[in-house]
């Protein structure tokens, strides 16, 4: 087990190294002057561009710059300076990360619950009305773009309800959990729903298929023959092995959810990493984008490692190698 984890970690580090290399080449490729101008921001004066040039030592060979860049990240967690705002990039990221984490983690919990529950329900009663409804809805939500669903939810659950005197859900804004857990959740309900409904669709179908397959296995018949209650058969025997494909998909979806978070944050005006990077585009504030890309990729790589390890723990049939 330890060897397995170590192998996955090494693989993750290698992938991250290449991500860093690719991102570095994208932002630092080209003539040193153009790189300095690119990173200094839209309204930078010639002096500021010169300072960026010297700060980053852009006249050195590219590989030397890259090694300084990697060293800075690994030893000091230094993601460079946001010249537009005049602060280290990490300061901005630390401000925005809690919003995005709240959004993605809450959304993920919700979509797993909705997806797996409706999938299992469908599988237990295949071809029933409940099954058809949930598969149909899954197909619908899978096709809706996040921003369209978000705006529809704002119109229906914010505007229409508020007009009728039920101001339950705000249309946007963010309240830190440390300030008021209740307000935090209330402000995030619509964004969570947006992310969850879209992603849940995949899980409905995945867990439905997996459950149907598992329910046909001999050991399920054995469990029933032993006289176990149906609930126990479903949860302890069937669900456990049906969850493995769900888990694999979950690793893939973290990346997709981070993408969905960008759109959801824009729709609901949540000051998270996604909105920060969209604003950074308009300000030509590239160091921020560089930082967000690196942090988000690291999150995806890490999530995949965790999923692989969980996978091995959950399903004893998985060979560790």
């Amino acid at each position, binding site marked *: 087990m330890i060897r397995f984890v170590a192998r996955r970690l090494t693989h993750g580090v290698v*992938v991250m190294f290449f991500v860093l290399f690719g991102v570095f080449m994208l932002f630092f490729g080209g003539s040193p002057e153009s790189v300095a101008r690119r990173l200094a921001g839209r309204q930078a004066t010639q002096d500021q561009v010169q300072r960026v040039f010297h700060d980053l030592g852009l006249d050195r060979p590219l590989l030397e710059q890259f090694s300084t860049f990697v060293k800075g990240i690994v030893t000091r967690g230094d993601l460079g300076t946001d010249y537009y705002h005049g602060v280290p990039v990490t300061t901005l990221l630390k401000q925005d990360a809690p919003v995005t984490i709240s959004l993605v983690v809450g959304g993920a919990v919700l979509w797993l619950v909705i997806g797996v529950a409706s999938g299992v329900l469908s599988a237990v009663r295949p071809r029933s009305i409940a099954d058809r409804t949930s598969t149909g809805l899954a197909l619908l939500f899978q*096709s809706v773009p996040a921003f369209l669903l978000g*705006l529809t939810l*704002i119109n229906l659950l*914010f505007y229409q309800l508020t007009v009728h005197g039920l101001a339950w859900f705000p249309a946007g804004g963010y309240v830190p959990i440390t300030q008021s857990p209740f307000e935090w959740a209330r402000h995030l309900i619509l964004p969570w729903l947006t992310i969850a409904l879209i992603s849940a669709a995949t899980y409905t179908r995945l867990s439905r298929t997996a459950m149907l397959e598992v329910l046909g296995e001999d050991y399920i018949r054995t469990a029933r023959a032993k006289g176990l209650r149906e609930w126990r058969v479903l949860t302890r025997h069937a669900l456990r092995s049906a969850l493995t494909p769900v888990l694999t998909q979950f690793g893939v979806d973290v*990346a997709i959810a981070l993408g969905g978070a960008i*759109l959801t944050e824009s729709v609901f005006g949540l000051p998270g990493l996604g909105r920060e990077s*969209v604003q950074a585009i308009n300000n030509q504030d590239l160091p921020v984008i560089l930082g967000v890309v690196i942090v*988000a990729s690291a999150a995806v790589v890490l999530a995949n490692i965790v999923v692989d390890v969980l996978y091995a723990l959950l399903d004893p049939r998985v060979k560790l190698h």
Partner: protein
Amino acid sequence: MTQSIENVVPDAATALEQQAGPGTARIEGRGPIKLAWTRLRRDRGSMISLGVIGFVVLVAIFAPVFAWLTGHDPNAQYYGADARTPLGLPVGPNSHFWFGTDTAGRDVLVRVAYGARVSLVVGIGATVLTIVVGLVAGLAAGYFGGIVDTMIARLIDVVLAVPFLLFAIALVGVLGNIGLGMLIIVIASFGWASVARIIRGQVISLKEREFVEAARSLGAGQLRIMFVDLLPNVVAPAIVFSTLLIPVSVVTEAALSFLGIGVQPPTSDWGEMISDSAPLVAEGQAWWYLLFPGLALLATTLAFNILGDGVRDAFDPRSDRLIPMRKKAK
């Protein structure tokens, strides 16, 4: 379960009857694509979706007809009482503007029609490019193995580790505002990785088969083995992937335009229209401005998704899985 058997058996029986015909037993050779098409034709959902897609394609091609019918240019701004309220706000559907007007007093109907062009061109263009690059990379990685495989597999891992929208934002940030062609390249430069991953896995198992050995013994070159012997065997997953990739590309294009980093104004685009409508919709105004482009976008992606499902079932009737995003076998 019993229901499904009843469904299948009579079908199979009638199919056999029709094929055998009275008297003359004629056996027809049918390739996998033809077989799949026969199955697909029986799927009502897929056929309806195909109709919807056909309709959207027609609208895109004949978008100027809408401009001619209404007499409104897609980018022209109108100022009459049926185009703007005294406060300068959009006006709802009326006899002159069937789908209402937008914040600039432009005709929503004509703009939705022209928007279909961008969506389809980018959606289909990006998909074709994605598939071609993915196929070549997957074939090369699977067939050559060794250092080529290691490099391509590593590249796939790296591309899949970066969240796509962020990747697109970074590219747009560095390259500046981009045109349609660049938009297609940006979408494809990410999408190829998942295609290549699937194709690579298939080729690795295919290349050990006898027919490849036979081709090699007959003196076939490597390119010939890759493209003449192996390629036809991975066409089925490629077709399935394409139909499922089109809606993804259409949504991606709309999303980028929604964020203001895709198609640039004043080009008509569904994502851009939806983004424009957002501040009004939050205040309960101009529902038509969100509804019509939103419906157009939803109908297009839904139709492609249903069709994609049908196509996958047609190629592999046992499958019941969503987009084939299984882990690569190690």
